[in-house]
């Protein structure tokens, strides 16, 4: 797609400052949160936040970096989740990390197939073809009962999270488990986007013709973006199913979920890694804040239905506002804020 979504937001921080920031975040996430967190914090906020961040990170590789719009991300989450479920069910001797990697590979393979139309189609046509993937995967999960182990209701429940005898079954454990997976994949994604391959992604996004002329293998690059993105999104699906909800039904991976992930990417910032986290934070926390706020301020007169409608409107408005005012999303806002602070020093 010749269309470009947003320039790669440039890091304004010095690398050292960046490193310090990341180290602080990791200390907070690993050192402080587990000491003070409540079950509600882990189960209702942090774990879904991590899973959605990872899904958005995956989509961002494809849409933000390589410029290929996908409206079917949740299909790959579903594939990851169901693949992991089947692997753990049918090959119970596999250690959990192996299961997760294999599940990611299943999603990646499907992503590769879904990426094939990208070699001929662009823009909206491609976006619509990813919708086809969304519906097709939904149908397949529903069609073949063995995928959900012939469960009459089609709902599967996740196996216990145990690695080498170490159990991550309680709320904090599942948070730490998700955190580790997300941190690891984010690191790898960072290596990717700063590598020559990542450069090729952006080249294809910003000017496909010029990219082809200088020798970027455009077809290969697009397929690679689809596969890598789907891998990450697939693993996010595993987290969603195994660490967060612990039961999964195909309906949970519908078009709305795909849009939700896309919105996270747009709001957070296309083509930035931290955008995925900022966007997911907003999408997960905003509804909770709004509903608390609405209940506190307006009390009884403000029923939950009205509130949800307002939230829908607020979310839509945010999308439009970001696209108009700050296409680089929250990530750019954050950069600007940091810059202001530094200037104030």
């Amino acid at each position, binding site marked *: 797609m010749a*269309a470009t*979504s947003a320039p790669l937001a440039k890091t304004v921080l010095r690398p050292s400052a960046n490193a310090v920031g990341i180290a602080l975040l990791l200390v907070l996430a690993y050192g402080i949160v587990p000491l003070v967190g409540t079950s509600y914090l882990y189960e209702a906020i942090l774990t879904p936040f991590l899973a959605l961040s990872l899904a958005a990170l995956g989509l961002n590789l494809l849409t933000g970096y390589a410029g290929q719009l996908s409206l079917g991300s949740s299909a790959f989450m579903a594939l990851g989740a169901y693949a992991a479920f089947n692997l753990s069910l049918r090959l119970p001797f596999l250690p959990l990390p192996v299961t997760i990697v294999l599940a990611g590979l299943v999603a990646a393979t499907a992503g590769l197939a879904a990426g094939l*139309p990208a070699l001929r189609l662009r823009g909206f046509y491609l976006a*619509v073809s990813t919708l086809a993937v969304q*519906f097709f995967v939904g149908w397949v999960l529903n069609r073949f009962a063995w995928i959900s182990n012939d469960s009459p209701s089609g709902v599967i429940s996740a196996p216990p999270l145990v690695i080498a005898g170490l159990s991550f079954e309680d709320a904090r454990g599942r948070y730490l488990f998700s955190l580790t997976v997300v941190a690891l994949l984010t690191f790898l994604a960072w290596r990717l986007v700063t590598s020559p391959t990542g450069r090729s992604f952006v080249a294809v996004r910003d000017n496909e*013709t010029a990219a082809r002329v200088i020798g970027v293998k455009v077809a290969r690059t697009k397929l690679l973006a689809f596969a890598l993105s789907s891998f990450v999104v697939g693993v996010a699906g595993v987290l969603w199913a195994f660490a967060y909800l612990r039961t999964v039904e195909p309906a949970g991976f519908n078009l709305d979920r795909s849009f939700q992930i896309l919105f996270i990417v747009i709001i957070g910032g296309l083509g930035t890694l931290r955008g995925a986290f900022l966007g997911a934070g907003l999408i997960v926390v905003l509804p909770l804040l709004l509903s608390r706020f609405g209940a506190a301020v307006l009390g009884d007169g403000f029923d939950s239905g009205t509130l949800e409608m307002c939230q829908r*409107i607020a979310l*839509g408005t945010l*999308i*439009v506002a970001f696209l108009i005012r700050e296409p680089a999303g929250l990530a750019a806002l954050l950069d600007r804020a940091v810059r202001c602070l530094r200037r104030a020093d």
Partner: protein
Amino acid sequence: MSPDLAFLVEVLVGGLLSGVMYALVAIGFVLIYKTSGVLNFAQGAMLLFAALTFVSLTERGVPFAGAFVATLGVMVLLGLTIERAVLRPLVNQPPITLFMATLGVAYVIEGAAQLAWGTQVHGLDLGIDDTPIDIAGVFVSRFDLFAAAVAGLMVAVLSLFFRYTRTGLAFRAVADDPLAALNTGLRLPRIWAAVWIASGIVALVAGLLWGARLGVQFSLSLVVLKALPVLVLGGFDSILGAIVAGLIVGAVEKLSEVYLGPFIGGGIEGWIAYVAALGFLLVRPSGLFGVRSVERV
């Protein structure tokens, strides 16, 4: 006719008539895409909004004609607002950005529609008796025939409009070459506004017909998903393409569900139209009526 043949004809006719309904939604997309290059995902939400407004007004005792005119007014206002508040500031942005903005707009409209009119499910009776007509053993739906007639009328009005009115001609000029049109002194914003109004009206007509079929409720906005394969097949910029592709998609969908479904499992309608349209596109990248565009560098 042998029973099997009669059945085949019936499936085919049913499919073609469903296709008209898809085309009706698709036309709204085409109008906007043709002039401003935006794939307006909010078309479904506009449809819901129109139908919900209309039905809520009639339920409050407003007569049909009054409700229709009032809703028309609301749709005009809505179209203008979207154009002014969302698309004007985003002019010259890549098409994908505009598309994503319309996703946001869809959310806003859906929320606003239900905030204003509630989440109740409504019935919508256009006063058309829908008992089937029996033609040589083949049942044909009166309502679908009516819908087809409305769709035909709308296409006729639109083409007359484009052919014979000043705005219509300007509209076509913009569709052919926005830059050139700008140079010859046409005022693009005015045309865009006109186009959004037109698509609001199309949304109203489609919303009423679909609303009568499904009931007026949240899932009405999902009909866009039926229109997308039509657009892929017919091209995003051709009204004729939308009609023809609608017919093809409707027929393919029904025929494959009835004749293919038993072999690979039922319920394939959700994706078969997409796959068929994309398959066609891979073979013929310019679509049904599209012209092969030349890449400018």
